[in-house]
């Protein structure tokens, strides 16, 4: 297997792994930039996986119901459900002035427990498997471009493009509008923003709800692209924490997180598909499996020192 073959099989799946992490990190970006530390991305994403799975399974069971429509509805439900769960974190962090790290951990545990609880009542087991996810498609015209076309535009999921558009829109919203400036200022000097007549609590609610929105979308993407099932046993394997690490590694900037999540996506691909490539065949599964987490720690060592964290993140206002 030549280098080109390896590359052309790694890149598309690396993109597939990147997108959910990117959405999780983007959600974290909104929340932390508005001044609320959000360690419950993991729980929110898991909730997204579960609610999308439950919805899609129910809809796909209806005879004659369009599979694509079922997936679209599933994604929307996932986003709404995760927003609802993130509301709990927002309420604790903003109104109750709780310790945000603990509240985030509580949400993570709550999400694991509640999804399993509901899965038990719905299907009687800890797993929900959907009949069919999204079918990979080539992007018309663009996939004909040599090299780039093969790597980035063949056999892609439509959710990938949706997520990238949302990422671009978020960059614009956060950096080019007065709303974005206010949101970011709430994470730096909330009292200054408040004295300028902006409702800090409202901005923070928006930030946390946005993190629910994007994490839910990310979770749904995991389900409808590569996973295909909600599995209570493994959950989402710490992907939400990888997203937080990517956020730190990306220095709380949209372009930064795009780069760092792609790096993690590549690591995940190597971990999960390593056995396919002759280069990695002799490495035991255990070491391949821990590779993304070790890489994350190393990445954090280099990026955490000069941390550009929002000043007021984690401080109740």
């Amino acid at each position: 297997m030549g280098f080109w073959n390896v590359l052309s099989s790694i890149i598309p799946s690396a993109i597939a792994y990147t997108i959910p992490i990117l959405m999780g990190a983007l959600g974290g970006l909104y929340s932390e930039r508005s001044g609320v530390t959000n360690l419950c991305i993991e729980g929110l994403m898991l909730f997204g996986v579960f609610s999308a799975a439950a919805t899609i399974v129910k809809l796909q069971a209806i005879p004659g119901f369009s599979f694509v429509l079922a997936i679209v509805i599933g994604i929307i439900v996932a986003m709404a459900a995760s927003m609802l769960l993130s509301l709990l974190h927002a309420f604790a962090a903003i109104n109750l002035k709780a310790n945000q790290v603990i509240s985030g951990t509580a949400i993570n545990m709550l999400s694991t427990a509640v999804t399993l609880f509901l899965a038990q009542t719905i299907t009687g087991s800890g797993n929900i498997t959907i009949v069919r996810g999204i079918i990979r498609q080539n992007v018309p015209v663009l996939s004909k471009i040599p090299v780039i076309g093969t790597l980035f535009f063949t056999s892609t999921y439509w959710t990938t493009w949706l997520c990238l558009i949302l990422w671009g829109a978020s960059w614009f919203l956060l950096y080019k509008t007065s709303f974005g400036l206010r949101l970011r200022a709430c994470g730096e000097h909330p009292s200054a923003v408040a004295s300028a007549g902006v409702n800090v609590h409202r901005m923070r609610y928006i930030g946390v709800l946005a993190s629910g929105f994007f994490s839910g979308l990310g979770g749904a993407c995991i389900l409808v692209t590569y996973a295909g099932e909600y599995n209570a046993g493994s959950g989402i394997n710490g992907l939400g924490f990888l997203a937080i690490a990517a956020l730190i590694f990306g220095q709380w900037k949209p372009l930064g997180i795009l780069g760092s999540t792609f790096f993690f996506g590549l690591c995940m691909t190597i971990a999960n598909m390593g056995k396919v490539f002759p280069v990695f065949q002799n490495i035991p599964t255990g070491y391949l499996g821990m590779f993304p987490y070790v890489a994350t720690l190393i990445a954090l060592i280099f990026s955490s020192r000069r941390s550009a964290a929002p000043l007021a993140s984690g401080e109740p206002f």
Partner: protein
Amino acid sequence: MGRKTVQQKPLEARKASPLVVSLSAVFLGIAAGCLFILCIGKNPFAGFERILFGALSNVRRIGNTLGMSTQLILIGLSVAFAFKTGLFNIGASGQMLMGGITGSILAYYLPLSMPRIIYIPMVIIAAMAAGALWGFLSGLLKAKFNVHEVVSTIMLNWIAYWICYDFIPRFIIDPTISVKSKPIETVHTLRADWLTDLTQFSTLNYGFFLAIAMCFVVWFILQKTTLGFSLKAVGSNRFCAEYAGIRVTRSIMISMAIAGALASLAGLTYYCGYSNIMEMGKMPNEGFDGIAVALLGNCSPVGIFFSAIFFGILKMGRGSLAATGIPTEIADTIIATIIYFTATNVILASFWNRIFHSRFEKKEEAAAAAMKKKGDHTPVSSLTKAQFNEYAKEGRALLKESKEGR
């Protein structure tokens, strides 16, 4: 003479104690659990009755509950210890795995003829060393590289998970069931014949006494040693501690190492006492439950002991829920809800403070009325508590009379 000059503490409203706050969190958590059970159309009271039945109805079940609580006490201590230094150790699961795998490998390879009096201290020390290393790593990352300990401990959890995934088949696999380790011989576990006989083959083992001993050790370190003082100083104000000459980075590393050692001890009791096998690809949930134990116990050893017993009851008792048709995950839901409410302890405390305050004000009003009638003009604040209560009682009756008279 001397007695009279002692300044009397001014009378004031009662403050909400940590116990009251914890109990309200438990109450709210259980209420949320009831709500969930009602949502799926089942009877919550029957559910809780089953939980209590499953956890406490005979000697064996009580033994099992204590066996489960053993891990929870140790993890609770681990989380609490890190918490006192201002660190949040959510890597107890990984530290448990490290302790468990070390203990299991030693149990597998050390000769069975080895006297237990040498064997047991040896595995305890080895497991604690492994966990201390794991905790130390995240402490090092935090102290030297400013890596948030929540993220680093989670990453280390998964690294430990994959290490076990690799080590179990490599060193201690049971060839007949290729996803589990070979069961450890009883003489190499922490179980004791007299405990097993006493509790009719429950999972209770020496670990329970180890956990109680650790409660004392943690209390001693935190309350009676300079090390404990400097750790707490770092926890309450890092910069102030630094200014006072305490080496903050060193404290962070030591604190995480001790926390890791405590959690790995939990892993040892879990994998080589409570159970005797390790499964591939399984992350122990107890690591996260320990957070609840520590928070609910207000990070004090005594509180942790009792909250661990409480969670032990929840976790063991849920096995009996099957008959009622309530999913057993209700226990985890309740635990998570309790953590959520302990996170908001400021609000719970202020809620109770407000209630205590308004009750105190009413009492004050009544006492003032009674004093006015009696013509006593000493200010309320200089009364003793007994006098104050006396007046308040009289006053309440007075106020009631006047209300009825009107």
